[in-house]
């Protein structure tokens, strides 16, 4: 599923956070979105997720609906003391097929088990989410993403504050999504991760500074250009 941005501008109040960005995330592409603080990275993927209105321009989603999109926000606003088990939270990922009201089938529980096994937290399935460490919790959220079977996956700094083992495991999942021809867009602040694991990179500085093959678009020069754009203000 391709995502096409046609000259989009997104503003908070009167301040544009993303300014006249055009381009395309091709079907099955795996793109890192990088840039300095205030570059509009989170804003951009929130808008693609349909959570923020665009001021002008258009985001075209190939005619696919909102339920084909999976979005993992930067700090999921999840109340970690909420009395719910890991498995119950993971099974929210089945919303697209089971919706608000349909009951769980045995195959649904099986799918949840598999997803939890894939991220290595199946032995915590029945534990309350408050028992999980930061890394385990992020793994659980990735299990939920797995169940969503979305064609477009939007991740906002998913490796923040994670240990390297967890990061490596979760990167492997992202790689698998890429192999399955899903479109993945991932906001990152760690440029090394971007250059090692992401074939495409969008360098954002309110405007699109560079976009394309990571080797070409991600460089000292483009990052400096992005920083200067932000510093110059509007």
């Amino acid at each position, binding site marked *: 599923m391709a995502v096409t941005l046609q000259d989009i501008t997104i503003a908070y109040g009167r301040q544009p956070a993303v300014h006249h960005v055009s381009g395309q995330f091709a079907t099955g592409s795996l793109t890192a979105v990088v840039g300095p603080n205030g570059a509009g990275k989170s804003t951009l993927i929130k808008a693609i997720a*349909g*959570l923020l209105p665009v001021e002008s321009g258009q985001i075209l989603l190939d005619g696919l609906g*909102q339920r084909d999109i999976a*979005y993992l926000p930067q700090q999921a606003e999840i*109340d970690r003391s909420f*009395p719910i088990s890991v498995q*119950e939270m993971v099974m*929210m990922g089945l919303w697209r097929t089971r919706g*608000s009201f349909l009951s769980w089938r045995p195959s649904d529980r099986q799918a949840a088990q598999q997803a939890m096994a894939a991220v290595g937290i199946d032995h915590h399935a029945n*534990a309350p989410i408050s028992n999980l460490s930061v890394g385990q919790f992020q793994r659980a959220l990735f299990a939920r993403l797995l169940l969503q079977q979305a064609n477009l996956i939007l991740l906002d700094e998913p490796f923040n504050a994670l240990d390297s083992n967890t990061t490596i495991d979760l990167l492997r999942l992202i790689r698998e999504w890429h192999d399955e021809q899903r479109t993945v867009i991932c906001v990152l602040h760690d440029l090394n991760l971007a250059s090692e694991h992401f074939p495409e990179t969008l360098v954002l500085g309110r405007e699109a500074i560079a976009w394309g093959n990571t080797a070409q678009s991600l460089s000292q020069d483009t990052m400096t250009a992005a920083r200067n754009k932000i510093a110059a203000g509007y």
Partner: protein
Amino acid sequence: MTLYDFLIAPFADYAFMRRALVACLALGLSCGAFGTFLLLRRMSLMGDALSHAILPGAAIGFLLAGLSLWAMSLGGLVAGILVAMAAGLISRRTEQREDASLASLYLISLAAGVVLISLKGSALDLMHLLFGNVLAVDDHALLLVAGVSSLSLIILAVIYRPLVAECLDPTFLRALGVAGGLYHLAFLLLIVLNLVAGFQALGTLMAVGLLILPASAAAFWSQRLAARLAISALLAGLASVIGLMGSYHGDWPSGPAVILTAGGLYLLSMTFGRCGSLRARYFPPRHLHHD
């Protein structure tokens, strides 16, 4: 006084006590469950505001039709919905934080209610509306309570999954394009209904107690939502039985008696509960247990 006289006789001898008991038990079932969600959404203050909001509405019903169950309930329902809407409007359209606007709203409601009742009623009428009167629970009131409790539990069962998801991770639902706000609205409406049903027996000041206290006590016993809903309903039922007996023997107003008992159960749970209680903190179990 034999044990029979103490425990059974009040209910065996007097129909109004039986009705009050059944009403409180039915109310406890739904209030226990809804209170748990109210706390999970950190909305206990909203519960306060809504329960006080019922008073001026019930008072207007009282002015127009005397101590009529239906007039007072309808008035209370309308006033409760109005205040819920006003609270939402104030928090969206002004920069004031919700706790301040809720506190303001419930003070206004309480004062308006007391003034309205004193226009026509006696101090006794005021006591009954504020603190409940078991004698007011006639067959119609019982039907109202049982109906509200059954209906709200059925609706809760239907909207359980989206309501839980909306509490836990509202962004997730928004990204799926599910109208989480709709479930929130249904939830608020059911809270108001439960408060309206509760005020005959418990009074407008006390009805919210059956929502908050058993639910916060239950939080000390389990980290599972389903268990919490059950424990909280159980504690609400227990508080009702003990409180009504106290009300009978001690001639206390029924609302405060039930709520005081619920408060006692809360203090016990806070001290001895399994999760996050004083005991769990200062005398932790020897083994780390996984569940």
